[in-house]
């Protein structure tokens, strides 16, 4: 029987080189190591031998079995190991195009979030409004030169005089009437002007109106609102300067300047070497306007402000031409 074992081992060593795939290997396993395989078969015979022979042959059997198992394991490792893959890691890959939100959308969202943190609700209004909403309700009577400050696009209409809102302030009285006091609201939106366009002027742009009425509204708080807003928006603390101005619907009326974000107040071309940038119009709401909404002007005060969103974005991202925003030029859109 020893000869038998020897020949099995020999055969296994001989066929080993013919095994090229896992199927061949499986056949090999079944033939030699399987439940009904050659070794099993011989083992049964060995078990029945007398004790002394059994001992001697058993040792040899174990040797042969181990050898064949080794052959099997080695072949298995070889056949199962990964095929060699060629890939140059310098391959540039494919460009995956992502979509882009318009920079103004992104900016408005950011602005809305900042104001939300300090208690401002958000309202949206109509773009086409009445003469009363845009002018009369804001203390701007007809045939008054103060209306020239807002070059208006008028709508052809039979009855009431209608126009494209020249400022988001057009919603002030409506909001004052509809909301409970105290209130804090921002109104972002498109506004329209009859204006020749150039790199700094557009006939259509975005404005953000801020409106707050309550017993505690005063100039200190207004300055605080600006301080917080600009710090959050531009990412740095900026000096805020109020200057005297005139708007018919605010009194006192203010022009708001911030320290130039480009030169940090040192003076540069953008701020015309003044160190400051004009950034907003603001003021305490004129009693005339509060009275339009039947608000007690002895008890309540309010402030309002208007920010030009394009201007803020142009400053923040160093955009030189306001016309880019509505150009539809994807080379612009995809930068942000």
């Amino acid at each position, binding site marked *: 029987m020893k000869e038998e074992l020897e020949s099995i081992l020999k055969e296994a060593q001989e066929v080993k080189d013919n095994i090229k795939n896992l199927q061949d290997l499986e056949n090999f396993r079944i033939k030699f190591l399987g439940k009904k395989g050659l070794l099993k078969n011989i083992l049964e015979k060995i078990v029945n031998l007398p004790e002394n022979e059994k001992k001697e042959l058993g040792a040899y059997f174990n040797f042969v079995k181990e050898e064949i198992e080794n052959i099997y394991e080695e072949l298995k490792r070889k056949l199962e190991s990964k095929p060699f893959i060629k890939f140059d890691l310098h391959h540039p890959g494919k460009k995956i195009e992502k979509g882009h939100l318009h920079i103004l959308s992104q900016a408005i969202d950011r602005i809305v979030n900042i104001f939300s943190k300090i208690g401002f609700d958000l309202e949206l209004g109509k773009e086409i409004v009445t003469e009363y909403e845009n002018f009369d309700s804001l203390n701007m009577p*007809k045939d008054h030169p103060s209306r020239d400050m807002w070059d208006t696009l*008028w709508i052809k209409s039979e009855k009431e005089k209608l126009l494209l809102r020249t400022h988001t302030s057009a919603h002030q009285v409506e909001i004052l009437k509809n909301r409970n006091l105290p209130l804090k609201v921002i109104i972002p939106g498109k506004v329209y002007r*009859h204006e020749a366009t150039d790199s700094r002027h557009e006939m259509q742009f975005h404005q953000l109106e801020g409106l707050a009425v309550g017993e505690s509204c005063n100039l200190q708080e207004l300055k605080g609102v600006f301080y917080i807003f600009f710090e959050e928006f531009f990412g740095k603390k900026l000096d805020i300067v109020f*200057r005297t101005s005139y708007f*018919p619907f605010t009194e006192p009326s203010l022009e708001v300047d911030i320290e130039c974000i480009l030169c940090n107040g040192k003076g540069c071309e953008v701020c015309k070497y003044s160190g400051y940038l004009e950034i907003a119009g603001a003021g305490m709401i004129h009693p005339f306007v509060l009275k339009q909404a039947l608000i007690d002007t002895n008890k309540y005060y309010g402030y309002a402000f208007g920010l030009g969103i394009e201007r803020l974005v142009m400053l923040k991202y160093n955009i030189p031409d306001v016309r880019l925003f*509505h150009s539809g030029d994807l080379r612009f859109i*995809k930068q942000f």
Partner: protein
Amino acid sequence: MKFRLKDLEELLTKKPNWRTVVNLLNKKSFETILENQYLEVDILPNRFADAGNILGLAKEISALTGIKLKPLKFNFKEINKKYSDFVKIECKTYKCLNYFGRVILDVKNSPSPKWLQEFLESYGLNSVNLLVDLSNYVMIKFGAPLHIFDLDKIEKQTIIIREAKDKEIFTSLKEIDYKLPKGAIVISDPKKVLALAGIQGAKSAEVTLDTKNIFIEAAIFDPAIIYRTSRELNLQTEASYRFERRVSDINTLRALEYLAYLIYKFAKGKVTKKYFQLKPLEKPKKILLRYQKIFDYLGFEIDKKEIDRILKAIGCSLIKKTSNYIYVTIPLERLDLIEEIDLVEEVIRIFGYDKVKIKFPTVHKIPSLNENYQFVNVLKKDLKEIGLNEVLTYNFIDDEDLNNFIRFFKEFYQEPIEILNPVSNLYRYYRPFIFINHIKVINKNLGLYNWLRTKNIYLFEIGRVGGWINKKITERDVLCITITSVDLDKVLIDGKSILNYIANSLGLKKFHITPSKYPKDEFDIFGYIHTEEENILGFIGLINKNILKKYNVEQPVLIIEMQVSNLMKYYKEEKFYQHIPIYPAIFRDISIIVPEYIQSDIIENEIYEVAKDLLEDIELFDIYQGPPLKENEKSIAYHLIFRSPERTLTEEEVNNIMQQIIKRLKEKFGIILR
């Protein structure tokens, strides 16, 4: 407005440090630039009456710096004849708010001396002759436009202030004829128009070098009338500019007297006794100012003495004072100071905004979310995620745009919203749809220096559109998606895929599309988008080739436009957990040939009906038309996913359902299995 430093310095007792003055003016009064011996001052519209002249600005500077003003001293002798012996004045309109006049005889008109010519030049005016130049000099110094008439040219020496007659003609100094609008005020004699009040004199009574006897008019006209008339005639003058912004009667009278003095001095005129005055001067206003008001506006208290000092500096005089309020008289030329709030602003601006500290805003409540805004934000982000680019376009279209889509337009609106005074013809109408502008954007981007390597453009925009419906303006917010590529199949299938994507992100299974019943010239393929309940959400269309050509776009363009408010109805922000299936799915594909006119929607619905709840999902993966199929046939292929929430489905069960499906589709649509 320009001011020569020299002219301001003449009025002040001490030469100021101009850098300091500019700084003060900028913060507390008006935007000012100092340049080559000039101040360029942007006088605010409400302050024009008092500060829009040399004397007024000097007063402002005096109030800011504390430098005193020199009193303006002048005098002249009157001759022993009364003005009323030479002129008769009748006022027939209430739109003339006040009227003063003087008669001066035997003037010697001549070219102006050098100092006067230089003065006028500095203020941007041309020198005409001594009399005219002196009156302009006074206008710039006092802010009151005066007018000199040649008395000998006035018929019957009678001046009539009246409203213009219908279609009355006014011939300007430049001999241009103007047909006067209703409501315009004219100065006339019994025969002819002598001046268009507040705007310009007429040729008929013009002062020339030969003029001997003159009448000086110093008047105040209703600013609204001047504003309207000068705009209607498109005739803006130095005078109209000032009258529109109001002129005080005190300055007007002071100017008249000063001009009389100058003519007496420089043109050797004999000034007749007294002046004509239509009405008494306005009484000085009195305002009560509560100190607390100032504190409330500021947010903190300041020294009451400081308040009193500021009021005095701007020329107010004290009537009464208590610990709670101060009661003052307002200087006559300060037309802008009418009520308490006006004084609050005066005190605060001169006190200084730089002394206002920063206070953290009081937050009364957590701001509520604006649903519309939130929804639009979600939509935008969803579209961005699948690679669409957001653009913003102008809210206007032109005539050609409207004509190209006029029939389609009429399905939505009755009339377009037309701008009366468009910036240009390109922006004549408020847009009724967004997609028209997107065709232009596509044209632009495809053309721009050939920068796009692939001709694929995927855009979206959410914005306002509108039109007239039942004599009312309707504004809507719409979502517009625009897709273009040279590959038509890609355009169509990507369009549908994006629609499905939006439906899914809204939480809808899908949108349904109904092709238009009427052929549309504007679109080669068109359908309305709606929900299962037939609520129209918008439309999808492949824009007609010929129309695209008009916009120089040569590749297919698919557009989708949907109303945001309609979409929002289906949006559910709250999400609830759905059980993750625990039983395995069985997949089957089915590929069928159907008549061309049968829509995939209908087939899908039929399949769902047969399979009931066991069909988890159906996905169309191929539509094919062309050989070897017949002309009016198409083949459609779907992946079907079967699954039961309660048990493991068997192959047999699914085979059975598949057979039922095929049977039903054969019966209903006569399909052939591929």
